[in-house]
């Protein structure tokens, strides 16, 4: 056995396409499944959250305005990069949470899920658009458009496939997001951020914050520039906080409870449609 000292990984926040430490310089410790120290993680502050939301807002119009084909390519690129780091994800999942077999299954499911949503980018719109036969001389059509900036509270179970299952439909539909990662498995989220960073996803489209969700959910729920909140985190207090505060700017709220993200049934274009607005356009038909 080599006595070489291994190089420890530093986990940072991922905001606006850059890895940075929390402005508060707070951190917290993550442990593996044997309660051994795994890593020091940044404990994002309210200001980090604000910065991440600003970053998400800044690029939303550009991301939502890209061609569906381009978004599909970028999501597929993400899947390719994940596949390249398959062993790393398996190792991290195994170390942090689950059995080897489960880690393999989850990693594969996560990659496949990404491929699934990569394929939807240029298809859901055709399924959920309509040309409406109005009773007047007008051409009238309805199409989905992205809701905007989405705050995502990730689940603690399924640290990888859960995360991907929430992020992928949101960004496939042209939204940008701020992800509050699982507290227990922040390191997996950090590695995913590295994948995102290296896979043509423009900076700011996905922002990943590690930290205590209890710190971050309240300012997220009340933030006036967040259009929607998605929570799959199994924490009644935090859900209640979202339910009680989302109305201040009429946020769209989706709470996914007890979903088994490993299953194929846990993917569909309806997850994309949860973060779409229908826009109807009228125009006279004449000469």
């Amino acid at each position: 056995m080599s006595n070489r000292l291994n190089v420890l990984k530093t986990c940072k926040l991922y905001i606006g396409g850059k890895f940075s430490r929390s402005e508060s310089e707070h951190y917290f410790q993550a442990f593996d499944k044997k309660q051994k120290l795994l890593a020091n993680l940044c404990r994002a502050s309210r200001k980090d959250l604000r910065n991440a939301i600003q970053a998400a807002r800044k690029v939303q119009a550009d991301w939502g305005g890209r061609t569906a084909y381009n978004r599909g390519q970028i999501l597929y690129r993400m899947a390719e990069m994940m596949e390249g780091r398959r062993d790393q994800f398996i190792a991290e999942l195994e170390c942090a949470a689950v059995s080897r077999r489960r880690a393999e299954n989850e990693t594969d499911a996560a990659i496949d899920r990404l491929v699934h949503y990569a394929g939807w980018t240029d298809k859901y719109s055709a399924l959920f658009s309509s040309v409406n036969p109005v009773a007047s001389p007008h051409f009238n059509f309805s199409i989905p458009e992205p809701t905007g900036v989405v705050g995502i509270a990730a689940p603690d179970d399924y640290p990888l496939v859960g995360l991907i299952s929430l992020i992928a439909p949101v960004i496939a539909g042209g939204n940008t997001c701020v992800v509050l990662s699982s507290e227990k498995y922040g390191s997996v989220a950090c590695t995913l951020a590295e994948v995102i960073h290296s896979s043509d996803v423009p900076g700011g489209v996905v922002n990943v914050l590690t930290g205590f969700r209890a710190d971050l959910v309240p300012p997220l729920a009340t933030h006036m520039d967040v259009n929607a909140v998605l929570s799959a985190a199994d924490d009644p207090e935090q859900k209640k906080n979202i339910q009680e505060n989302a109305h201040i700017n009429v946020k769209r709220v989706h709470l996914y409870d007890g979903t088994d993200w490993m299953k194929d049934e846990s993917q569909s274009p309806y997850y994309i449609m949860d973060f779409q607005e229908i826009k109807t356009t009228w125009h006279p038909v004449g000469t």
Partner: protein
Amino acid sequence: MSEKEVITRQSLRFDELWTYDPAPESPDYVKIEEQYNLFIDGKFQEPASGRYFETINPANEKLLSRVARADKSDLDMAVAAARKAYDGIWSRMPAKERGKYIYRIARLLQERAREFAILESMDTGKPIRESRDIDIPIVIAHFFYYAGWADKLKYAFPGVDPRPLGVAGQIIPWNFPLLMAAWKIAPALATGNTVVIKPASSTPLTLLRLGELIRDAGLPAGVVNIVTGPGEIGSAIANHPGIDKIAFTGSTEIGRTIQEASLRTGKKYTLELGGKAANIVFDDAPVEEAVEGIVNGIFFNQGHVCCAGSRLLVQEGVADELVHKLKMRMETLILGDPLDKNTDIGAINSKGQLDSILGYLTEGVDNGQQIYQTKCELPEKGYWCRPTLVENVSQSHRIVQEEVFGPVLTIQTFRTPAEAVSLANNSPYGLSGGVWTDKGSKIFKVGKGIRAGVIWANTFNKFDPTSPFGGYKESGMGREGGIHGLLPYLELS
């Protein structure tokens, strides 16, 4: 002097030589009861409290009728009736039979359209031309449209099996009382839900008459229940544990409380809230039609329209000509008796609403805004507001930011398409927007840029049952109308 400056010098005389004599619809065509009860479980029932409130005609301040004031126990009865009808009959009935009931409602309404139109104008103050040509025909079309969906739901959403939710609680505003009721009742029934619906307290009469019609149509008892009363009943509906879904149309202020209650009590909900739509006119627009669109955008229903085009954004090069022509057009608007067939501008719906509108105008004067009103005379009785333009406004003024909900149009100019879009989006609302230009590619670019649920390009304030309607941002969520209007009433799995 450029040509465009010259165009504003001449003026025209509209109100001379020949004016139209009164041409009123007869209010006697409609028999209004002295008192109306709650429609629960297929029967009109007295409220538990024994109390009634008054509804008046805002055009003459005369009492129209007294309407039951429901309290919590009445609501409980209505919800129980709706639940029983849902479990016992409506959710079990073959879908095509459900559809036939809705068709029957549509046909009966068609036969009695005139009566509904007159009553709507009496209770709301809106011109009979609008209730006769717009409100009631679209009400009927809505029932026809959704009737046909009842047995076709499995084709609506690919890959899933849609199921009804149960009891829908629906809360209706005062600006389009019967139309908003139709927008809610028709899809709810088509999808197999039962309904507890509450009209606005100032405009309950057409919905109560619809209750009579629904009873006469033989709809099973409890499928549609109507509770009348104050705002607290709306809040009680949103909080009621026996209700599965809320559909609310009204102000964003109330909408927030409805959303909060719905989230807290785990209901599905859709919200149609306020708006502050920009109506953008480019210098290559068809000017005369744009003027007409602006008029329809803001003076339709006295501006009591959530999607009203209340902010005119006009490109600098065409601003003088457009505003001059707009003022000329406004001089031809006839304000007065809502039942007169020639009336273009009816009464403001209530004293409170009038005070609120006038409050904005008073504040505008204080802020140095330039207020232009048409010269028409106002009737002595009733609540009236002349068609109004407000110039010299800045984006920060309250009258530019807030929903006035009256016949009041603010005017701002812009230079480039990008500036127009950013002004249009500089609002917490996102219900609708207008674009006027002769250039197709500009329509798509600007239309895409506006963050709003309905874009009217070279037209404004058009509605159709096949066409989804609803807002972005604080203008609400969910859609009413079209295939998308089914979704809020279905569970997909």
